[in-house]
């Protein structure tokens, strides 16, 4: 048998590994077996699925290749090319990464399809440049969501809960007036 790592030498050593209860056997030559240890990331690299492959699997690149009905979106995606870095959407799917900030505009229509699969949403919420008071926005958001809960509580005639929620909102509003500076 030929060594599974260098694929050149005769394999003389069998490495048995149990990962998460899954037993696997690898056959290496003496030289490669020496390099086999968990710290050596380079050694294990070939065994790991590359991230771009994972991304393109996830986004169904092969489906676009095969499905005749979906040919139309595929060609339109191909034609869009980022003016700054020359990336196409296909290249992004292959690399798993974008080429420049401009890409987000160039592929602004297709990207949300990808993002819904790997993220919690497609719109950013949180810190933004030039908005140092985003802590306030966060409080405001919390107030809004608590108000909704309050309405629900009143609707369901849970008046004790409603009173608590009302106090919570007052407290948050007070904090907002003070500029949201009191750190917890």
């Amino acid at each position, binding site marked *: 048998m030929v060594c599974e790592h260098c694929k050149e030498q005769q394999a003389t050593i069998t490495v048995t590994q149990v*990962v*998460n*209860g899954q037993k696997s056997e690898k056959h290496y030559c003496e030289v490669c077996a*020496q*390099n086999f*240890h*968990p*710290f*050596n*990331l380079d050694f*294990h690299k070939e065994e*790991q699925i590359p991230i771009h492959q994972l991304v393109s699997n996830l986004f169904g690149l092969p489906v676009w290749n095969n499905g005749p009905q979906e040919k139309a979106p595929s060609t339109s995606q191909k034609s869009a090319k980022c003016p*700054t*870095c*020359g*990336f196409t959407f296909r290249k992004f799917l292959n*690399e*798993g*990464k*974008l*080429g*420049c*900030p401009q890409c*987000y*505009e160039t592929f602004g229509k297709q*990207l949300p399809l*990808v*993002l819904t699969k*790997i*993220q*919690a*949403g*497609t*719109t*950013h*919420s*949180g*810190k*933004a*440049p*030039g908005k*140092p008071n985003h802590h306030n926005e*966060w409080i405001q*958001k919390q107030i809004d969501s608590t108000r909704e809960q309050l309405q629900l509580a009143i609707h369901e005639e849970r008046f004790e809960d409603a009173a608590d929620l009302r106090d919570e909102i007052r407290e948050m509003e007070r904090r907002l007036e003070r500029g949201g500076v009191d750190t*917890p």
Partner: protein
Amino acid sequence: MNLEHFLKSEAPGWMDVKGLDADIVLSTRIRLARNLDGYRFPLSFTENEAQQIDGMIYEALHSINADGHKFSHFTIKEMPALQRQVLVEKHLISPLLAKKEKSASVHISNDETISIMVNEEDHLRIQCLAPGLQLVETYRIASKLDSKLEEHLPYAFNESFGYLTSCPTNVGTGLRASVMMHLPALTISKQIKVVTQMLARLGMVVRGIYGEGSENLGNIYQISNQVTLGKSEEEILKDLQEVALQIIKNERGAREALLKNSRIILEDRFNRSLGTLKYARIMTSEEAAACLSNVRLGVDVGIINEVPLNVLNECMILIQPGFVQQYAGTTLQASERDMYRAKLLREKLNSNNQKLMEKGEERYDV
């Protein structure tokens, strides 16, 4: 400060400070990914762009007041491979940055709590480290520095996608928050699989501390958020905090159960491991990590009293191949490394013991 300062064979000072839930959570890490508008990402930029970016970030960092933090700047290209590896093992730079050839560099704060990687996967990666579980506090430090840099740098930001990053897994907040946890009891009692599955459903990832593919080494796990878009920083941190607290609770419960049901077996195991660390002549990284984990658990539950936690923290870092080779002063084959590793551990654990003996009662203070 020169590079030697950051290559010393000891744990960084911040690790000595006792953080919250320090028996289980070793450290907290916050990372913010940022890019400069008008420049291509490192994946496709030119050497010229890389240099400009490097220069701009250098200028920006030196024109702000970083709350008393002093930064030292190192160019990756100029570092020998072994030194890069040591910085990776200290988590001051990422393995990816260590491999970069184009104007990649790093700014490290002198106390080693902050490192700013330039031209890694993104133009700018701000990283903050802290002992124990303190997600919000650590994020605040990173965010403050980020806001100050923002005044001097044109960040690539988009109203709907947030901070733009090369990889869509970082876009939005650009925030990756991680906690390193020592979970021996959950591992021994095989509950860790359930925890890992639960975390995946909550949008969190579990990795080994020594990088991907090292899941079981030393029973240390790194838990971090997967999602960066659609959730605000506060939500991401809050969710991770809740998950971490839940895991801490489970680990404590599992430790108690183990101690109740099989105390003598544990005592045997802990002391055997300590003996191995103190007297073995050949030590693989796996064995060293496993023994250190046992001794650490022994210290946490009060069965072993003679080894201070900070020595264990230090040993955990020093057993990595880069540090072992640096200690030996030369590059080594795997088998030679195992011998030097054993020597290093013997020195650390035995010398400390003597020091403690001399100091007398102090050892009960640990």
